[in-house]
C-alpha cells in the first residue's frame, strides 16, 4: 500500500529543508529515540527522519534521507490525509504534489540564504586570517627592531600600520 514518491527538487541539505518546511507551515520535527516511543508509522520511523504535521493512512508523512537526498514518505493514495497542525495558520490538507511544489519553492529561497550565510562565514574566515597575518607581521617587525636596539613608535593610519623605528647613536 505504501509507496515512495520521489520529489523533483533534490532536498539535499537538512538545515535548508527544515527552514523550507517551517516556511510552508509543516511544523517539522526531527525524530529522536525518545519520540520514537510515542510516534509510529506503518512503514516504520527512524531516528533522524523529519516529521511533518501531515498524516495519512500510514501515519505521519515524513522525510527520510536516502541516496543523498531527503524523500517524502507518504501513502500513495493519501488516504485519510489531514493536517494535524499545532500552531500552523492553515489546517487545509493539500495534495502531496502541491505540498512538495510549495516546499521546493521555499527550499530554493532557503538555499540561497544558506549560500549567503556560507559566503559570509567564508568572508569572515578569510578576514580573520588576514588580520592574524598582519598581526603576526607587526609582532615580528617590532621584535626584530627591538632586538636591533631601535625604539619603536606605532601609528595606525587607516588600514595600514606605520612602525617608526629610531636608534640613537
Amino acid at each position, binding site marked *: 500500500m505504501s509507496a515512495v514518491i520521489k520529489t523533483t527538487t533534490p532536498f539535499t541539505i537538512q538545515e535548508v529543508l527544515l527552514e523550507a518546511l517551517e516556511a510552508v507551515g509543516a511544523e517539522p520535527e526531527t525524530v529522536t529515540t525518545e519520540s520514537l516511543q510515542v510516534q509510529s508509522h506503518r512503514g516504520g520511523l527512524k531516528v533522524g527522519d523529519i516529521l511533518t504535521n501531515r498524516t495519512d493512512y500510514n501515519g505521519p508523512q515524513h522525510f527520510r534521507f536516502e541516496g543523498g537526498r531527503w524523500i517524502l514518505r507518504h501513502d500513495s493514495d493519501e488516504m485519510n490525509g489531514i493536517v494535524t497542525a499545532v500552531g500552523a495558520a492553515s489546517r487545509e490538507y493539500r495534495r502531496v504534489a502541491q505540498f512538495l511544489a510549495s516546499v521546493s519553492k521555499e527550499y530554493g529561497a532557503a538555499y540561497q540564504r544558506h549560500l549567503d550565510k556560507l559566503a559570509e562565514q567564508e568572508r569572515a574566515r578569510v578576514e580573520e586570517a588576514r588580520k592574524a597575518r598582519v598581526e603576526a607581521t607587526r609582532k615580528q617587525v617590532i621584535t626584530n627592531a627591538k632586538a636591533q636596539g631601535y625604539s619603536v613608535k606605532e601609528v595606525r593610519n587607516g588600514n595600514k600600520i606605520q612602525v*617608526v623605528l629610531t636608534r640613537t*647613536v
Partner: protein
Amino acid sequence: MTRNHGEFINVAHIEPQSHIYGPGKRFVIWLQGCSLACPGCWNEEMWSFKPKTLIHRDELLARILATQDIDGITVLGGEPLQQADNVIWLLNRIKKDSNLSTFLYTGYEQQELHTMGLWHGLNTLCDMIAVGRYKQEDRNTNRQWVGSENQALIYPEGSGENMPQSEQNEVEIIIHSDGALTVLGFPDTEMVDLIKQI
C-alpha cells in the same frame, strides 16, 4: 627618453603620511628619473626617466592640500631638480596655499645649484634642503635625514623649521592591510636582512 612631460610630474612613489623625512608628519614624494647615478644609490630603480606615474601638478597639489594632519611636504627621488620647473611650481604653490613646511632633497651641490640658477628660488621656497651626492664610501646611516657624511642639511634664511638634525638612524616600516611591507628610510644591512626574513 624625454624628461619633459609638460605640467605632468613623473612620480616614483608617494607616502602621504611619513614620519622620518623631516620634522613631523609629512607628505613625501619620490620623483622618477635621475642622471646623477651615484654609485651605491638606495633607489636605483628611480634612475630611469621612463614615466612611472605621471601626475598633473594641479592634481598633486590638490592631493597634498587635501591630506589631513600633516606638517609639511618632502620631495626627493630620483633627482627632483631634473624636473625643476614643476618642482619649483609645486613648492611655490605650497607656500602660497598652505602653512606646510617644505623639505627638498637634491643630489646637486649648493654651488651647482647656483650655476644652474636654481639656488635663489629654492632658498626662498624651501624650509630645509639636503644637498650633495650620495657617496657610498661616506655612507652613514646614523645622520638623521641624510645617507652619507658629505651631504649637507641647509636651513635657508627665513626657514620655518628649526628642528636640529640628530645623530640617529630612522626607519619606517609600513604594514599594509594584506601583510605586505614597505620599508622607508635608512635601514642598515642587518635590518634589511631581518625584514627580508619576515
